[in-house]
């Protein structure tokens, strides 16, 4: 038997392809021929090694593949984790941001931050007087604390603002600034003698910052003829002027000159005047030496000395012409007979002060 035939036979035996008789024949052949038996044994082990080698190789490849796959999934997983975390927290983050924004802006709004911004953005200050507001607040708090157990709710109305106003006609029409009576519950006018009358708002002109009031009180007696006149032509720079107003509860005289033909930021409806004015002067008349009213004090510029503003009389006349006839009780006829022109200043003021009122806004 040739060697390669024997190996072929052995392969068939190892693969179990032989019939039972043939297998027995192969085994007995090996027993009788020890040299072939050795060859067979060697061949068997070699084939086994070959098989094992292949399996081991396959295992190693699988291991390496698994290692790479593991690494890939690890990185993939971490990526997935962050995205899923974000998608999970997206809603929460949105809600948190919304809450933060709402609380920030509501806090700012409640504390009046925006109102302050608005105020701070302009250095124009309207000259109405906040009447003893701090003191009053404190006393009201005291009252509230004292009455904390009393259920009696006292309806104590409070003065919010004070300003100045003056007579247009002897039958009770008074002019003041719009910003004084803006948002008012009721308006009262008080003259130098201390008599107070309730007034009605007849007409307002927010653009020109003017308001026309009418004294509606039955106790009001029609006055003597108004001593001053209204000068509709524009006045000259450097003209001496004076005013009378109520920056406090007593009438205060102020004197100065007309310093510019335009008002705040080039506003053509007003003059710039150089008179010391203070909160409470708003609505006060500006008169020249002859006792003609040339304007109405409305405000001043912060941070600049002697820059107060007065609305021109011409604008007042225009406003009066715009008032619908229905809202008037009879026409407004402005006085044109000046009784002050020849008088010294002190006399002028004496005559003047009866026609100038403290405007109290509640």
């Amino acid at each position: 038997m040739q060697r390669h035939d024997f190996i072929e036979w052995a392969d068939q035996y190892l693969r179990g392809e032989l019939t039972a008789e043939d297998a027995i024949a192969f085994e007995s052949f090996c027993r009788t021929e020890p040299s072939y038996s050795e060859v067979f044994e060697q061949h068997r082990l070699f084939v086994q090694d070959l098989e094992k080698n292949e399996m081991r190789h396959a295992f190693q490849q699988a291991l390496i593949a698994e290692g790479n796959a593991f690494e890939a999934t690890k990185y993939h997983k971490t990526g997935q984790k962050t995205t899923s975390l974000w998608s999970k927290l997206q809603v929460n983050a949105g809600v948190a941001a919304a809450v933060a924004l709402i609380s920030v802006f509501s806090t700012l709004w409640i504390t009046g931050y925006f109102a302050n911004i608005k105020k701070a953005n302009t250095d124009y200050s309207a000259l109405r007087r906040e009447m003893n507001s701090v003191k009053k607040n404190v006393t009201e708090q005291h009252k509230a604390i004292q009455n904390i157990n009393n259920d009696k709710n006292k309806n104590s109305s409070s003065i919010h603002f004070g300003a100045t106003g003056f007579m247009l006609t002897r039958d009770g029409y008074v002019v003041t600034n719009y910003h004084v009576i803006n948002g008012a519950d009721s308006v009262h006018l008080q003259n130098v003698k201390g008599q107070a009358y309730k007034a009605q708002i007849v007409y307002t002109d927010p653009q020109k910052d003017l308001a026309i009031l009418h004294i509606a009180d039955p106790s009001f007696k029609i006055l003597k003829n108004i001593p001053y006149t209204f000068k509709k032509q524009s006045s000259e720079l450097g003209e001496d002027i004076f005013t009378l107003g109520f920056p406090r509860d007593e009438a205060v005289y102020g004197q100065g000159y007309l310093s510019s033909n335009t008002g705040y930021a080039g506003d053509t409806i007003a003059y710039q005047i150089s008179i010391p004015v203070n909160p409470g002067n708003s609505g006060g008349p500006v008169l020249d030496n002859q006792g003609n009213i040339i304007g109405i004090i409305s405000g001043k510029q912060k941070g600049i000395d002697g820059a107060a503003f007065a609305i021109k009389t011409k604008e007042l006349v225009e406003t009066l012409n715009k008032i619908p006839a229905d809202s008037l009780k009879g026409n407004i006829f402005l006085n044109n007979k000046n009784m002050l022109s020849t008088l010294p200043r002190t006399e002028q003021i004496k005559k003047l002060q009866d026609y100038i009122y403290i405007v109290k806004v509640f």
Partner: protein
Amino acid sequence: MSKIRQILPTEISDQEIVDGVSKGDSRAINKIYKIYFPLISRMIVNNSGSEDEAKDIFQEAVMVLYDKITQQKFELSSKLGTFLYAVSRRLWLKQLTRKGNSANTSDISDFEDLLGIEDDLERHEETELKFDQMNKALSQLGEPCQTLLKDFYIANMSMQDIRDKFGYTNTDNAKTQKYKCLQRLKKIFFNSSLEK
């Protein structure tokens, strides 16, 4: 949460893994990776190793386990994790000493000897050598001999199929060719082992 699930080998027992490895089951390989790799990787990375080195060491340790399982009746004398950890540590220390970084290697060698790991490693190295030679011999053998032998002895293809696949005129030719290839392979293999 997922990490905890990876560390705890609750779903599969050591014995199941051992059985899977001996059959070359890819699911067993997957489990081994999931359960033991993080621990061993951390050990190596904490001891001045890189992720890639950890991967190499771990794969070699698994091969040590494979050789141990396939060459003798494997008994679980310790937990599979302990075994793999000890082997990986030993292999890593060897690599470190080879690199010349032999600081604090003495304290752990004791407990590894207790586990008889040195024997396993020696056997692993021998097997590695043998199979290296076999692989080299196979690659030296070249085509079509290599594929022919693999198809016959490993894939268990019939002589008829081999004849058709390789285009021999009859099965006897194919048988002769197979015999020649096998003889050449044996020659290369035993010559190279004699050289060693």
